């Protein structure tokens, strides 16, 4: 009989469905083909004019019906598309999922196009006064829904028949990993047999781009977009804003096997630690990130020598990649030089709230396919942070375990450990 409990006596959590959308395409198959051939999804921005902008490239998802309909509708469609793939693969009824929903999604705001339309539908008085007066005369709820933080999850809950009050969360750029962590914890506590965890982000609006730009966080490598995201390179100059979604169906191993589901991987550990140093910068000694990695390993019951591959946060900002190198080399010691560590963001950019979920999906595929996707654009290594980044070309390798890192503004550090097989 299989062992259904982990080293701490908790239910082992299996992954039985995976879905993903990025600028490289819809679905695992297209994404994996592109990712393993080192293709970049970064391209010039066409969704809005780029006059006055320092950054004019992104990894936006421009090929969905909602791509130009605003952050809320696009985020919903991204989430739905990835979840549909995951739930379908898990062989579950897509209208009656039967477990809770955890959604990582960007904070919502009234879209500027709606703001302009509301404002210019009237001439009386000005500013907020006019907006409020027009607002209370609206007959439809469409615009209202886009401003409610719980609405996307509410629609998804309707669409997939998830149970209970859906949780929408934000831990900034770690959100996708946190959504998975919440699902894992709910199953471990015995609250449910399965959970649907989604990270989705379709919020690459002009204002979002400008905000990150004002914080000097974005690459301005506009002339050669596919070369802009260059994690761990000496000339890295910021991340590339991107969109995407990742969804996992999480299930207790026991329940998954009982219904004859194919087990695609194991979510064996989650770790987190908050940083109290600064709103955007990490504590110089890297201690919170180090603690998060160690917490994830401990939660998984694995030693430092039992991680085969690291799916890096690897944003391509000067700060992140340096700090990630520091924390990984602290935890893994001398072994760091011989461990493959690659960044999916070199090809898909930084999908923000979705990143942790998208990269967990790719981590699981890495183990299943025995192929490590490369870090592309690694032409000018940073000698201060030398790592085996699987430069520029995919690598065939047996990967039994993966550590996936997610670090975010606001001192958020969340790490996931995944395994190919139950231990």
């Amino acid at each position, binding site marked *: 009989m299989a062992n259904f409990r982990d080293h701490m006596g908790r239910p082992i959590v299996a992954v039985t469905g995976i879905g993903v959308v990025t600028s490289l395409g819809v679905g695992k198959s297209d994404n994996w083909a592109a990712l393993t051939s080192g293709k970049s999804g970064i391209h010039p921005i066409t969704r809005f004019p*780029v006059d006055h902008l320092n950054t004019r490239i992104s990894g936006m998802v421009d090929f969905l019906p909602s791509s130009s309909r605003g952050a809320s509708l696009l985020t919903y469609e991204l989430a739905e598309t990835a979840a549909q793939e995951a739930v379908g693969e898990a062989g579950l009824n897509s209208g009656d999922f039967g477990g809770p929903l955890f959604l990582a999604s960007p904070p919502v705001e009234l879209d500027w196009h709606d703001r302009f339309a509301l404002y210019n539908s009237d001439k009386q008085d000005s500013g907020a006064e006019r*907006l409020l007066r027009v607002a*209370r005369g609206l007959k439809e709820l469409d615009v*209202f829904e886009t401003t409610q933080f719980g609405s996307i999850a509410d629609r998804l809950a309707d669409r997939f028949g998830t149970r209970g*009050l859906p949780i929408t969360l*934000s*831990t900034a750029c770690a959100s996708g990993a946190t959504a998975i962590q919440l699902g894992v914890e709910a199953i471990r506590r015995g609250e449910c047999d399965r959970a649907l965890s989604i990270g989705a982000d379709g919020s690459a609006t002009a204002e979002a781009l400008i905000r990150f730009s004002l914080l000097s966080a974005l690459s301005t490598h506009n002339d050669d977009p596919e070369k802009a995201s260059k994690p761990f390179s000496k000339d890295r100059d910021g991340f590339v804003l991107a969109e995407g979604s990742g969804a996992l169906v999480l299930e207790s191993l026991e329940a998954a096997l009982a219904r004859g589901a194919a087990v695609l991987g194991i979510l064996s550990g989650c770790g987190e630690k908050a940083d109290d140093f600064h709103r955007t910068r990490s504590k110089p000694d890297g201690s919170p990130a180090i603690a998060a990695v160690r917490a994830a390993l401990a939660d998984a019951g694995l030693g430092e020598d039992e991680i085969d591959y690291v799916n890096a946060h690897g944003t391509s900002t000067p700060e992140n990649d340096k700090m990630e190198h520091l924390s990984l080399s602290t935890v893994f010691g001398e072994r760091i030089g011989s461990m493959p560590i690659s960044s999916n963001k070199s090809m898909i950019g930084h999908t923000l709230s979705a990143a942790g979920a998208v990269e967990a999906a790719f981590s699981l595929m890495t183990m299943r396919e025995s192929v490590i996707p490369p870090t592309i654009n690694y032409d000018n290594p940073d000698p201060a942070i030398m790592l085996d980044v699987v430069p520029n070309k995919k690598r065939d390798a047996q990967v039994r375990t993966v550590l996936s890192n997610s670090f975010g503004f606001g001192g958020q550090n969340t790490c996931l450990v995944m395994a190919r097989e139950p231990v």
Partner: protein
Amino acid sequence: MSSPHDVVITGIGLVSSLGEGPDTHWQKLAQPGQKPVLEASRFAPYTVHPLPEIDWNLQIAKRGDQRQMETWQRLGTYAAGIALDDAGIKGNDELCTTMDMVVAAGGGERDEAVDADILAASEGRNDRDVLLNEKLTTELRPTLFLAQLSNLLAGNISIVHKVTGSSRTFMGEEGAGVAAVETAAARIRSGQSTHILVGGAFQTEHSDMLLGYELAGYLHRGPWKPVWQRQGAEGGGVVSGSGGAFLVLEQREHAASRGRKIYAELGPVVSGRARRARGELDAEIALLLRQAALPDGKLLAISGASGAHAATSAEKAALDANAAISARGFATLTGHMKEAQFPFAVALAALAVDRKAAYPVFDAATEKPFEGIPASVLATAIGYHQFEGMALVNAA
């Protein structure tokens, strides 16, 4: 029967138009005939319950930290500080670095002047997207973004109060507050956590925060009325208020081992998502009342009712249908505080249990007196638009 893994409340941090701190709130709310603090002119035709005067230095020592935040984040960080002080955790490195945190948050304040300027300019421009780029690239204050990000309330609490065990932010109006308390309690019960800071804040004195309700016509207009008496009045029934509520939830044995005063035990926390368009709200409220394991006999209920017509009348009908329940709609005195509403309700319930006394009626026309000692108190938050939750708070 108490058990070592029970969830107990050992710290309460409150701010509202009534003042700050658990003691002030108890004193004011226990006072029969307490009048609300109202601001009816600044946002006319809307009335709001404004923030009291706050000396931010009391909880946010560094001016530099205060400057990095707009009012919403300062308010939450401030209320969290009161709760940590109240629980004897603030300044205790070991307890802070191992403390988990779940914050219920919306978004922060946009720059109203920049927005108004862009809107005014849009009247004469057809290339509005270019206008946006032109204005936003030159007029936005770079760090304002951080003051707006939902998870940066938690981020600021980590920076100011050094709470760093873990940090999670839930979004989604009242439901976020419900889920935050529910998840925190589940983590403690299962032994995943020993002490958690949970709560939220809402700063309503900003046009976008009013717009968030008014895009669906939810705000009450015209003369102020108590929360239960707004049906049929002009507008949608919600009068909002600025405020914040944080709780320190703790495993009973953890609290006992450090000899802390326990306000109350947090019993069942239940939540739901009625598909209201299909008419499921009445049944959902009834289901939650059953799941909340209400004790026999008379019961005090601290209702987070918003005043929103449909949700408030459904909740009122359900509470009225149970003759044992005496409800107190605290939004009459504080206004609706969105993400903070449920943590606030739980805090008021805990105070009543701790003080062994019920609150007098907040609205003599619709609420009935409660005599005796409330050993258990129900806290509710039926979302003005979506999501529902309740908790039963019991004597420690």
